């Protein structure tokens, strides 16, 4: 059933708060001007950005947006029942979980703090996951959104890929290229309708399994995410009245996206307006999904849809109605979609409805741990000595140690499960991952390329790997898994959270039948054979499927910072089991080294033990969340 969108908060190029954003959207203003917070001379003639221009960072914007959203929502809840889900590519100073941490601190929220880092789909995915937390009862209030600051290294990478426009971007228009932006946006979600602005009826995720930076050209990935969102919302394509597109303005994206929308909505696609808010805001990357949702919501409240500025004569074969007006256009949308797509091939689509959509919950499906796979370099061992035969078919070009380890672990998990993913099942097989940091080797390669040739000559290949989701995307390409995909960022239990999210996706949604859940870590450069060799590295993978033989994930519990006991209690309740039935407990501290790998490995070890029977509880906690899983046979 839908959840209520209660409060909104935003900081972006055309408004430092919601009222000013609403005014600017109403007036059809755009915020694309010369970037001032770093020197754009190396990128001449490219110079534009949709910038906030207040000297602050994205954490500060996130806190402002969240306070605004929370205040406006008027909702109240116990601190432990308020969850935060944030999406960001980099956060401030590469502290990816820092956004969620700061937001939770500002609100005094003590529920789970989760972070998604799938580049430009991060915040859309965060809002979708926020709905899941409410549906599962992990919280009574969820604050979800995202934040991104336009960093010069990121600007350099996009510039190097040749996708930045000299003039303000023209989504669906006849000149190609995007304009980057920045900002933060958050929404407050509750189960109770209250005085809701609108209702989030569903969401969908998918992977292109195609290329590091180019979208699947038919938009098949976008189409699958739309179909997932419609199924989640239990709506038919004919019910959709408007599409708020990702619409970056690049040659590849807009064509592929329109094809994908057409593939998913059929004849309906040509009947409804589709517009791109990036023509006003720029491409705010990790914050893009939420900011564009907010623009759509602001317009919907006034009975309009946002315009796409500067479409000009449009593209051959483009959408017939890109809302090529200078201001929002009157149009009543009862149900609409907001779509996002990212480097690495991740897609996320949100489905919004004006009225609440009550529906009976789906029957819970049994989730079986079908296979386990690990690819680890133990502490003290050298990476070079780990010879993984599973790498034989993998093109090593454009990969890093994180990605390679993930591919090996995933391949092993599928083999262990005896699972053959082919044909139509590929569309229903997904990959989730949890990670601590972006591959240090790729970060170093990118840094070195800038040192060598300057920002304007940075390495595009290394840049393409600078998203936390990179290795996850590689796995989905390598194994042609086109179902839901995401990457969680965390300091202690990201790998385990990936397993939990994947298990719930199979149990409660119906857009996947097989999920791989990975945790991975990579040693810091320069520490490989010295002190850092104390750290293990690699990936652990748990292959989950609906039904079949093997131990099951019977219950999932998710609670706030360091609340392991709470998580255990919730997981047992979810499983319908009591403490006295538990035969083994793996309630542990988050690992100091390689925590994402270790947390997925812990689940794998418990699952291995559960193959011999018994009921096992695994639990971990860190300063952001606690998670517990109940694994065993169905009683």
């Amino acid at each position: 059933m839908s959840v209520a969108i209660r409060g909104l908060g935003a900081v972006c190029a055309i408004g430092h708060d919601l009222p000013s954003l609403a005014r600017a959207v109403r007036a059809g203003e755009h915020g694309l001007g010369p970037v001032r917070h770093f020197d754009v001379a190396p990128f001449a003639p490219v110079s534009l950005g949709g910038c906030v221009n207040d000297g602050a960072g994205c954490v500060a914007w996130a806190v402002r947006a969240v306070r605004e959203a929370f205040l406006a929502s008027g909702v109240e809840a116990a601190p432990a029942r308020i969850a935060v889900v944030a999406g960001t590519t980099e956060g401030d100073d590469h502290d990816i979980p820092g956004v969620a941490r700061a937001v939770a601190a500002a609100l005094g929220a003590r529920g789970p703090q989760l972070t998604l880092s799938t580049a430009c789909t991060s915040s859309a995915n965060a809002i979708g996951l926020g709905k899941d937390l409410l549906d599962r009862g992990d919280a009574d209030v969820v604050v979800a959104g995202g934040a991104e600051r336009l960093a010069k290294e990121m600007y350099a990478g996009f510039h190097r890929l040749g996708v930045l426009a000299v003039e303000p971007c023209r989504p669906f228009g006849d000149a190609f290229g995007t304009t980057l932006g920045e900002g933060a946006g958050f929404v407050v979600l509750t189960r109770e309708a209250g005085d809701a602005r609108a209702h989030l009826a569903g969401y969908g995720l998918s992977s292109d399994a195609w290329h590091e930076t180019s979208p699947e050209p038919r938009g098949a990935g976008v189409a699958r995410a739309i179909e997932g969102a419609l199924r989640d919302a239990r709506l038919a394509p004919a019910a959709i009245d408007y599409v708020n597109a990702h619409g970056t303005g690049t040659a590849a994206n807009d064509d592929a996206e329109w094809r994908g929308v057409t593939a998913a909505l059929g004849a309906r696609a040509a009947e409804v307006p589709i517009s791109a808010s990036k023509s006003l805001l720029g491409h705010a990357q990790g914050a893009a999904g939420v900011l564009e949702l907010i623009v759509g919501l602001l317009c919907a409240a006034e009975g309009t849809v946002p315009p796409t500025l500067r479409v000009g004569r449009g593209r051959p074969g483009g959408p017939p109605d890109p809302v090529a007006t200078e201001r929002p256009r009157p149009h009543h949308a009862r149900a609409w979609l907001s779509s996002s797509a990212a480097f690495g091939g991740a897609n996320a689509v949100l489905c919004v409805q004006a009225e609440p959509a009550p529906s009976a919950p789906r029957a819970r499906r049994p989730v079986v741990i079908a296979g386990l796979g690990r690819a680890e370099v133990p502490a003290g061992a050298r990476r070079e000595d780990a010879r993984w035969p599973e790498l034989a078919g993998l093109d090593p070009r454009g990969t890093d140690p994180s990605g390679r380890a993930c591919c090996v672990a995933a391949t092993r998990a599928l083999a262990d499960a005896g699972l053959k993913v082919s044909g139509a099942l590929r569309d229903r097989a997904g990959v989730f991952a949890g990670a601590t940091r972006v591959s240090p080797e790729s970060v170093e390669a990118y840094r070195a390329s800038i040192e060598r040739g300057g920002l304007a000559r940075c390495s595009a290949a290394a840049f393409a790997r600078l998203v936390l989701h990179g290795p996850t995307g590689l796995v989905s390409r390598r194994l042609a898994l086109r179902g839901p995909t995401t990457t969680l960022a965390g300091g202690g239990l990201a790998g385990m959270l990936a397993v939990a999210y994947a298990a719930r996706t199979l149990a409660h949604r119906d857009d996947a039948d097989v999920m791989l859940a990975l945790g991975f870590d990579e040693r810091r450069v320069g520490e490989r054979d010295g002190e850092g060799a104390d750290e293990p590295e690699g990936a652990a993978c748990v292959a989950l499927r609906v039904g079949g033989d093997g131990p099951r994930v019977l219950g999932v519990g998710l609670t706030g910072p360091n609340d392991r006991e709470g998580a255990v209690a919730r997981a047992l309740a979810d499983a319908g089991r009591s403490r006295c039935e538990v035969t083994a407990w793996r309630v542990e501290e988050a690992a100091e080294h390689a925590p994402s790998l270790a947390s997925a490995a812990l689940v794998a070890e418990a699952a291995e033990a559960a193959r011999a029977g018994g009921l096992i509880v695994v639990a971990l906690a860190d300063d952001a969340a606690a998670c517990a899983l109940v694994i065993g046979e169905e009683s």
Partner: protein
Amino acid sequence: MPEADEVSAIRTRVGLHRGTPVGVALRGEGAREAALRLCPSRLFLRDAMIRESLLLDEAGRPLADVLVAADDEDYLLLAEGLDAAGLRAVVDARLEGSRDVSVEDLGAGRAMISLDGPWAWSAVAAVLGPDLVALPYLNLFRVDAGLCLRVGKTGEFGYQLLVDEGAAEGLYGALEDAVAGHEGRAVGDQARALCRFEGWFFDPAHIPTGVTPIELGLGWRLDLERDWLGRAAIEERLAAPGRRLRCLLAPRPITMGEPVRLRGEEVGVVVRAAYSWTRGEHVIAALIDEPVGHGGVDFEVEDAAGATTRARLVAPPLLDNHSLHVDPRRHTFTARDEVALGPLARGPRAPEAA
């Protein structure tokens, strides 16, 4: 000249051709292993990806020019240079004892319809839908009629439609209309071969005796990290000095088999020569001693009339293909005048006749 008109269609509009495919589909758990056993190249194929490969004999000599495609779990091999029976004989012999793989003849009961030219995408899209415009080079999409492979061998946008015989007639007719609407035409094998030659694409119909991929400049199609049939011979060729296939331009017709001299010294031999309508001069493929086979060097060669003429070694590509300037995302055939096009022929020309 019909041939000149057909070449012009491929170079400036679109050329339509219907032929018989030769190929096999490798299916089953062992499909990838089988493909690796047959082909000496790297096979890092994402689903729907196509790569160029070869079939070699034990002496490392090419038997066929091969396209390998990953289609879900299957590997498809499309071969030129062997007929269906010949390919099947090689495949069956090589895969003897291979497990978990079944081999299906891809050509039986199927037709191959090809469209090549800077506007080929527009004609294909008109019949089979706009999605095909997005198909990147060396990838395949499934269409209702069968498979659409984006695999030109002329330097232009190229599409090959692998379809059931039953559907081929109707599809060909529809494409004929679309091609005519794009001012294109049906083209024959000869015109296609000529475009392939002046586009400097490997053509297995013209392999000089005894050469390996090394002499043919196809060393990049070999994966020397693993073993395959013919590998030992290839290693020998790599280690020894030798001749390499190079592209020369001459002002007068040249006969195959003529020696190529540099300052009087014999340094090579002509292995193929043809008149390029597009360039208005003769294109020569010659095996030239590697140390002297570089761009801008003028060689002496005897022309068809018995007189010595000069031939200049040049760097491919010989053409500034219109396909590199026509962008399906930007352009339409009706507004084709908006495409900024330079002369088709690029780079240095043949020296004046001596």
